[in-house]
């Protein structure tokens, strides 16, 4: 038999409905407004009765559309480019963080080695560092120190191939932003994955080792498949941070490596906000996390509880 459910008073359902409206309402409002013309948003006489239009999305995506929309004379918003940058940065940094973090978590759980305690303590401590604190040093280092001189062999090669002047630095490149994100997310990923790896029965690993598997084979063939739920949770959280982050990306990117959050903030700070277009870009930025939430909410919740409860 299926589980039976308790019957609740109507007031209870009213409360739940109110909560749902409160949490989803603002997102829906943005969704609806992104299909309105600015005139409709500002006049506001009709809340729900309006002619939906995709003009805002056309304006936002004008640099990747195959046709030229009538209402756009000059394509100033390079949204498509920014979206591509966001995608590359978020995907690459998520993949790197997972692989590296997984190996580190495994070593911390399964091996006793010199310096293990200090590594795990440091990992826990750096979790609290806010991105704003990294702003100053990362800006300084990525611009001045993590560079290849233009006179060296590799530096001159890069300058000849890609053009540009001055030394070749990490700032302004995708790899520069990816490096910060990987470092920033590693402590969290290691922390979450540890609690999943602990649950893998040791006997399984030993059996594999008796059959002649090396430590790396044991890790990739036995442990990894068993901690898939943990990997999914960690992947979602890492992707979310890399996809949504603004501050460090804005300090490190140049005109061509801008991500979507930077584009939105730049357009918001202008005096005359074009609400329709801005909401369309906001919606496009919000879609990937919304999809994740709808399809993997169980993993997200598992990851959240594992991250907080297993201190």
């Amino acid at each position, binding site marked *: 038999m299926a589980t039976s*459910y*308790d019957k609740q008073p109507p007031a209870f359902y009213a409360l739940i409905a109110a*909560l*749902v409206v409160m*949490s*989803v309402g*603002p997102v829906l409002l*943005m969704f609806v*407004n992104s299909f309105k013309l600015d005139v409709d948003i500002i006049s*506001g006489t009709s809340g729900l009765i309006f002619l939906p239009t995709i003009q805002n999305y056309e304006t936002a995506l004008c640099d990747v559309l195959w046709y030229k929309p009538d209402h756009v004379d000059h394509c100033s918003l390079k949204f498509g480019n920014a979206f591509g940058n966001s995608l590359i940065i978020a995907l690459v940094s998520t993949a790197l963080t997972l692989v*590296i973090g997984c*190996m*580190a978590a495994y*070593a911390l759980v399964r*091996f*006793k*080695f010199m310096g293990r305690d200090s*590594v795990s303590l440091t990992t826990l401590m750096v*979790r*609290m*560092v*806010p*991105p*704003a*604190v*990294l*702003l*100053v*040093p*990362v*800006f*300084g280092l990525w611009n001045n*120190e993590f560079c290849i001189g233009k006179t060296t062999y590799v530096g001159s090669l890069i300058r000849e191939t890609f053009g540009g002047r001055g030394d070749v630095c990490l700032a302004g490149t995708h790899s520069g932003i990816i*490096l910060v994100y*990987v470092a*920033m997310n*590693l402590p969290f990923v*290691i922390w979450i994955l540890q609690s999943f790896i602990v649950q893998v029965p040791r006997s399984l690993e030993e059996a594999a080792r008796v059959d002649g598997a090396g*430590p790396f084979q044991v890790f990739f063939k036995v442990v990894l498949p068993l901690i898939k739920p943990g990997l999914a949770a960690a992947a979602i959280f890492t992707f979310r941070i890399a996809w949504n982050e603004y*501050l460090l990306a804005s*300090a490190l990117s140049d005109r061509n490596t801008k991500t979507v*959050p930077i584009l*939105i*903030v730049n357009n*918001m700070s202008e005096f005359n906000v074009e*609400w329709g277009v801005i909401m369309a870009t*906001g919606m496009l*930025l*919000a879609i990937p*996390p*919304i999809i994740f*939430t709808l399809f993997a*909410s169980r993993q*997200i*919740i598992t990851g*959240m*509880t594992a991250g*907080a*409860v297993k*201190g």
Partner: protein
Amino acid sequence: MQRATANRLTPYMFMAPAVVIMVIALLYPLGYMVWGSFRDWDPSQTIGEAEFVGLKNYITLWHDPNFRESLGVTLSFAFFVVTFEMVIGVGLALLLDRNIRGMSVLRTLFILPMMIAPVVVGLMWRYMYHPTVGTFNRFFEAIGLPTVDWLGANALMSVIIADIWQWTPFIFILSLAALQSLPRSALEAARIDGATGWQQIIHIKLPLMMPVLIVTGLLRLIDAFKVLEVILVMTEGGPGLSTEILALRISRTATEFRELGVAAAMSNYLLILLLFITVMMFAFTRWQEMRANRLRAAVEGDE
């Protein structure tokens, strides 16, 4: 013989990539920042060219009324946000901890606000708070109430409300998980002894949930100091300095005022504050473990 060396090296091989990346992009920058905070440092200079000024940046900041105000705003933001979110989140968890249909759908909808980019959250709320076209003021006008100057005179409150909207679900989900893993026997016993709903909550559920709640609250507190984008998009720290939290002030000092040394010193103040909270959290979990071990030992001793 070779096999033995390989085995001894294995953990280091597993750890190496993570350690290298964290040292290059996290620990070295933090050290660099501490080093830079003792210098009169301009973005056009490399750190070597900047003049060494000792503790000057720290002392100037300590006497700077703007920094103090910003610190006050940060502390009160963190305090109110965590307090309200804990009360509402735990309250909702106690209320909704029932066997109802569609609980998983509900949880999915509740975590939606947390997953959306802070920049977008700021954008939504800035629209809703808009003095003339915004949702709230329009609604107030429609039902004949006076409109509110959300992002003007009441900016800090409005920012706090937006954060509560985004992060209460976090507390809710964690306390619901804690509630559902409580030992059923204790609740059963209380019910048989005739405890009312309130008595069960106050004497049994809350005390048993307390360890999780404290860790959750401290985690949320640490995160409250990281909030930046939502406020940046909504108010840019204004009007005046009324919503300029420390993270925002650091970024403005570095990019607008171009005083990297001062910004570094400010970052260090923030780090010290967070370090204090983190150490408290560690101490608490250690103490909790020790107490649990002692209890277990006592129980085993009795048997």
